């Protein structure tokens, strides 16, 4: 069951999402749980019905940054676990998207789409300023996609591979 630590304007909160039937989700925000009927209504829009309210949320992402706007409140959302991972040179992200922590060159691709991987397995090695960084699997799962080739130049925040968690 996905659980996220989200930081907005310096405050971090834990949000747990449990999928139910028909687009319904049990969302637990700190110690409060509500049922939300939610659907994506466009690339940048999520319509939510909960607490007898209809909320039209706008969402977007750009590399490591995610954005949410609700009722005129526009926020940048960061993910503490992810920044911790990036700081450790891992570049692994909580949702299985493997991003590069720095611009550089891909020196090795260790996996192919469909491969099973265990948490911590090296997926891609990126070199910059003569230092190699291993980009590792954030959790057990399958490689959903590989978006780079050996020798390719990469920029900060590029998604080089995606890992899908093993279904529990």
């Amino acid at each position, binding site marked *: 069951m*996905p659980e*996220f630590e*989200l930081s*907005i*304007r*310096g*405050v971090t*909160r834990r*949000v*747990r*999402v449990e*999928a139910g*039937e*028909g*687009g*319904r*989700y049990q*969302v637990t*925000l700190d110690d409060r749980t*509500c049922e*939300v009927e*939610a*659907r*994506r209504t466009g*690339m*940048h829009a*999520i319509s*939510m019905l*909960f607490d007898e*309210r209809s*909320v039209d*949320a*706008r*969402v*977007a*992402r*750009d590399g490591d*940054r*995610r*954005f*949410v*706007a*609700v*009722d*005129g*409140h*526009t*926020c940048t*959302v960061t993910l503490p676990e992810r920044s911790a991972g990036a700081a450790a040179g891992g570049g692994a992200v*909580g*949702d*299985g998207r493997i991003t590069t922590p720095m611009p550089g060159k891909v020196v090795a691709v260790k996996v192919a789409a469909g491969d099973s991987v265990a948490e911590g397995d090296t997926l891609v090695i990126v070199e910059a300023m003569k230092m190699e960084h291993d980009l590792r699997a954030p959790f057990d799962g399958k490689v*959903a996609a590989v*978006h780079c080739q050996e020798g390719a130049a*990469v*920029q900060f925040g*590029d*998604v080089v591979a995606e890992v*899908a*968690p093993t279904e529990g």
Partner: protein
Amino acid sequence: MIRKVLVANRGEIAVRILRACREMGIATVAVYSEPDRDSLPVRLADEAVCVGPAPALESYLRIDAILDAARSTGADAIHPGYGFLSENAEFAERCAEAGIRFVGPKPEVMRSMGLKVEARDIARAAGVPLVPGSAGAIAEADAIREEALRIGLPVLIKASAGGGGKGMRVVREEKDLVGAAEAARREAQAAFGNPAVFVEKFVERPRHVEIQVLADEHGNAVHLGERECSIQRRHQKILEETPSPVVSPEMRERMGTAALDLVHKVGYTSAGTVEFLVDADGSFYFLEMNTRIQVEHPISEAVTGVDLVQWQLRIANGEKLTLRQEDLTPRGHAIECRIYAEDPANGFLPSPGRVVHAFEPNGPGIRHDSALWSGLQVTPDYDPILSKIVVHAEDRERAIAKMRAVLAETVVFGVETPIRFLFDVLAHPSFVSGDTTTDFIDRHMKDWTPGGADELPDAVWIAAALDRVLRGGESGSAAAGEGASGELPEPWETIGRFEIGGR
């Protein structure tokens, strides 16, 4: 007849002009700098010519390159927009020499109005009220005192050589006059080597009110009422409205007449704006004339129904004004909010970056003059204006409510904007009551912040979490069966990283 117009500008005003041309059946040429290759004006124009790299001095301000672009594309007119070369008399002259019509007033008129002292002299000769002040520089303390009492306190004593606030003093009481005069003289001497000072009326908590004019080449001119532009940050306007909360129909007529007196005196043609300071008792004083289309022109268009940019082009074409002054009574109320890429919580510093996503709501009485698109790279090279939201409603109260509703729906992701700040300005009791003076932001909004995360609705957090679930396939079978839209990858996800022009 003008057949093809080159727009020597960028961003929202270029879009505005290109659309006006398109509506009039005039072919268009955009010029652009290298990083603006993907911008809306380039895409909207019939032809586009690169005039240089990012720095404005090497692109949008390069007269030769722009004239070359006009020649090579066969443009017979150039619209300069605002900023850049719009008030550059030399550029207007060079256009004339090249046989290309400059959409604006005559170069000599631009030159006169561009020089502050000359503009004031012309205004005085036209009988336009000026801030009362000494006719020339005064060096004697006694004479300063005499002059100040003649003008009436409070007065501003300032160095005749100078600038930057040095040697400048506000005097409110007679007993402080001599001391202040001595101090101002000493400071002026120390800073500029010249002790002479000017004395002028100090306008306390003024309003900035300007009159829009239109004049043709046949001696006809009309004014389109006023715009109240007092809400400013860093001496730049950020929110404008019309009518002004303090301008009565009678005062509008007096200000309009004064503006038209100046227009006739200098032989002004095209669209222009006469700026006034308005003090608490409703006296108004000439500040300067802007010889171009203004950023905030749409609010005048909203309440008068006149298309100012089209009229600029028609006047450049030699057409006669068909507008009659008696038909130009403002109808309803209009407000403009400028959306800049800047951070209102951090001194309004520019916030360059990539606009990840933008949404501009529509509806009755809503207009966006915008160059925004999802993917726009805001570079630090230019004024960071992204768009202008203009609303028009039956009265001021309804216009404020409409603007707040529009701002609440407007979304710009990726760069900071003053959207929330403007939303709060519009709710401030002093704004609502019409107490809008040029110090409004310093007085009421100085320590503004967007508010802490604890004030955010829970829906923000829930949406942030659901965004990840609905996108990522982490939600299990329920989301997977929930329609294809949830699975759509974003173009940005599949395209990989790219930058427009780099950083």
